[in-house]
């Protein structure tokens, strides 16, 4: 049946995995071609039939795959907004054109949405009629026994001394895995309903997955945060460094949890060829579900997020925050705290950059640009001059170098905490290499700065995604459905017992697999043989003369 669709129409949707479709009857489509001079309704029906045809579904599947490709080749905002910005800098004339086609947001672009929405409409249009047809089939009795069982793909015949009634009785127990119905002198059985059920479940589960994803995007939120060892965090909008709410997320009602990062421990491989590779990160945290709630502990690791109040807290990265104490020109301590320095992405030694802003220093504001080296070592640079470099990402022998500025830091304007606006400042000079405890006296009596030590910091991500569990459930259902539709064999079998001319009972067994499978023939043969053997051993079937009870 799968091959029966005509060339001009070709729109008959058939079973997804081979064999005749059980839901064939539900196919509204005949083999009709394009409608000539039809009413709007006719056109609509024609379009619907095209959309729900298997060929359209196949083409949409290919478009779905094809459309995903540019998203893997061009930087995507959802993955790495920085790389998109970089792309704009590198290709200033091409980037706006790509933007017009949403190529930096492929997976949320209207054209990609059009593909998958069409695909899901097509899928719905196919699956719902099939689901209904299957429901009818499940509720209906197995079909009537055909007159000529000898024409079935498998048929067997033998005679027995047992009464026809006795044969059918034994037939019921031999074909116990079939749903059986008695028609006159025969039994009609059907098995393997789960294949079509699996097919329907699989496709419905995919719809469920799409809805879960959409719900996650709409109602979820994601935020990033940098937390220094010893510091705390409370889940409010203002605590985040960056926050990405879903379109329908309720930003005023975030889960009221809080936590403190008590300590952080980073290990790196010390020796051998893998020296410097990260080995493990672990942060000890104390957290509360809500203010006043009981304190709990969690060890945050890369694969062990903290789950609190419907929010997952993940460890994204780790680096160091050197601590500085700054005295201004009047000898007052105007700054004393750790400052997170961001590691350079390509540097295996995790050399990190950061700035220290001391706008309250007197007589003039102070600012520092610094470099932090976790394990500093002198080496000869490419130009032959000695230079300082970090040779290991762990803080074994940390050092900082600073460049000091004085003047107006421009704090009245919003600015990044990682950048110093030196346009209205004057450079004071560069420090030498500072080790923990070292103090650098600034020129011109502007003050002094002490590198007092360092702390670890962790970059964290918090996500709330209400679509998580429904998505997992849908995906699991999809796998179950898939297994059913790929491995269950729908099949029919019949047993007929009729009195022969010699007084013995003629037994006919026949089987029809709805999918091509040699396993069907083998099963029918095994069952036929079993029925024959049972009747042979059956005392009640001991010849035509034996009594019924």
């Amino acid at each position, binding site marked *: 049946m799968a*091959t029966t669709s005509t060339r001009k129409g*070709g729109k008959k949707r*058939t079973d*997804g*995995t*081979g*064999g005749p*479709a059980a839901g064939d009857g539900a196919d509204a489509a005949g083999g009709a071609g394009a409608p000539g001079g039809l009413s709007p309704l006719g056109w609509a029906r024609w379009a619907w039939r095209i959309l729900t045809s*298997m060929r359209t579904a*196949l083409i949409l*599947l*290919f478009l779905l*795959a094809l459309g*995903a*490709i540019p998203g*893997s080749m061009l930087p995507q905002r959802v*993955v790495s907004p920085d790389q998109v910005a970089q792309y704009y800098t590198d290709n200033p004339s091409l980037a706006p054109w790509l933007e017009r086609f949403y190529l930096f947001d492929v997976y949320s672009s209207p054209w990609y949405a059009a593909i998958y929405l069409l695909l899901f409409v097509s899928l719905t249009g196919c699956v719902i009629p099939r689901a209904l047809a299957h429901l009818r089939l499940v509720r209906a009795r197995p079909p009537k026994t055909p007159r000529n069982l000898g024409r079935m*793909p*498998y048929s*067997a015949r*033998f005679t*027995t*001394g047992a009464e026809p009634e006795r044969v059918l009785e034994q037939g019921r127990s031999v074909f116990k895995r079939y749903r059986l119905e008695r028609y006159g002198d025969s039994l009609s059985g059907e098995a393997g309903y789960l294949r079509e059920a699996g097919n329907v479940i699989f496709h419905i589960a995919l719809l469920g997955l799409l809805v879960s994803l959409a719900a996650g995007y709409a109602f979820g939120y*994601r935020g990033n945060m940098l937390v220094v060892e010893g510091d705390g965090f409370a889940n409010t909008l203002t605590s985040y460094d960056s926050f990405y709410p879903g379109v329908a997320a309720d930003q005023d009602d975030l889960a009221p949890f809080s936590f403190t990062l008590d300590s952080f*421990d980073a*290990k790196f491989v*010390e*020796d*051998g*060829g893998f020296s410097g590779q*990260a080995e*493990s*990160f672990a942060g000890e945290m104390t957290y509360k579900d809500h203010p006043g709630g009981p304190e709990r502990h969690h060890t945050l*690791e*890369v*694969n*062990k997020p903290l789950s609190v109040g419907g929010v997952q807290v993940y460890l994204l990265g780790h680096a160091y925050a050197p601590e500085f104490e700054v005295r201004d020109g009047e000898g007052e301590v105007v700054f004393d705290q750790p400052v997170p320095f961001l590691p350079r992405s390509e540097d295996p030694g995790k050399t990190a950059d950061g700035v220290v802003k001391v706008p309250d220093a007197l007589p003039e504001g102070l600012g520092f640009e610094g470099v932090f080296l976790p394990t500093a070592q002198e080496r000869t640079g490419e130009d032959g001059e000695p230079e300082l470099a970090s040779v290991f990402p*762990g803080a*074994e022998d940390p050092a900082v170098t600073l460049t000091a500025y004085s003047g107006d830091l421009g704090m009245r304007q919003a600015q990044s905490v990682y950048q110093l606006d030196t346009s209205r400042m004057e450079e004071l000079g560069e420090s030498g290499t500072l080790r923990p405890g070292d103090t650098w006296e600034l020129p011109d009596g502007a003050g002094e700065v002490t590198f007092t030590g360092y*702390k670890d910091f962790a970059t964290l*991500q918090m996500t709330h995604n209400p679509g998580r569990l429904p*998505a*997992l459930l849908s*995906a699991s259902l999809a*796998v179950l459905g*898939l297994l059913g539709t*790929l*491995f269950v064999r729908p099949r029919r079998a019949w047993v007929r017992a009729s009195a022969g001319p010699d007084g*013995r009972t003629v037994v006919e067994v026949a089987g029809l697999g709805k999918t091509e*499978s*040699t*396993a*069907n*023939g*083998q099963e029918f*043969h*095994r069952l036929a*043989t079993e029925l*024959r053997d049972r009747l*042979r051993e059956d005392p009640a079937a001991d010849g035509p003369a034996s009594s019924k009870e």
Partner: protein
Amino acid sequence: MVYQLAAETAADQGLASYSDHLIIAMIVAYAVALFLFALEAAYGRRTALKGDRLVPVGAAAPAAAAPGAGGSSTVDLDAVPEPGGGTGGDGGTGGDRDGDDLSVSVRGSEPQASASRNVLGAIAVAVTGVGFLLNLAQIVTRGLAADRWPWGNMFEFVVAISLCSVAAFLYAALRYQARYLGTFVLLPVVLLLGIAARWLYTETGPLVPALHSYWIAIHVSAAIVATGAFMVSGAAAITYLLSHRTEAKRAMGERVAGIAAKLPSPELLDRVSHRFVVIAFPLWTFAIIAGAIWADEAWGRFWGWDPKEVWSFITWVIYAAYLHARATAGWKGTRSAWIGVLGFAALMFNFFGVNYMFSGLHSYA
């Protein structure tokens, strides 16, 4: 902040070097087997295969003793021998019992299948078996040496995928007489292993923290096993396309000579190819889902359009299209075989291209 030495994780050097020797040994074994299979394909005699042991279509494997619907028309399904005297013990009515012999008729649509065969092929299967054991030993010793699951980088993936492809092939060879696939499965295996040993080789060592999870055993194993099965399917699909062309030429009345003339029957290859997609597709689906669960744990989202995720999705979609195409008029045969080849290309691109061309979260190589 505590800084700890990591000396205790250093790999066991003795085991590691033992494992390195095994790589060479297994490549040699596979190469020898490949050579023998090629000889069989070229110089064997085209022989009809036994109908009862061919690939079942689309459903569970048949019971070993039972006969299949193998022949072209009516087949003697009573291969389970009818106990001729078995009725004798029943006593007096025994004479009547002759009538309860089964007379069976089967209408099968399975055409005659044939492939080039030679004794060298049997030797090649044995050599492949040796290679398989060496492969297994290599993986085990490497895992023991590093004290972790032995799939944490590209080199280890290739070795594990080879193991699964060869296992799938050996199963097909022993169960379905499909050793005619030997050349087509071992060729990519030997190539991949060569690439792995020459360019991808990595010292035995510890994993980065992101891979410290039991999900590596689940997600990566499923992906590796699925890839192995897809590889056999891809090999069969390519052979199918070649064999189909040969068949078409024959139908046109052209004479076909050389190795092409000895290719196995296209229907058979088509079914082998489909069979392994049927096995691999749910596994691949599961691998993606397991990966999503792990991603949810490790990266804070279960799906984030990372290049690796995108390409495994593309691969999934293409194989889904393959399964649908096989049931659609006008897409059967060569068209669906091309889709299968396309799926395999996407799979390989996901493995090599994505790791080396794009930077993403899966870049552990």
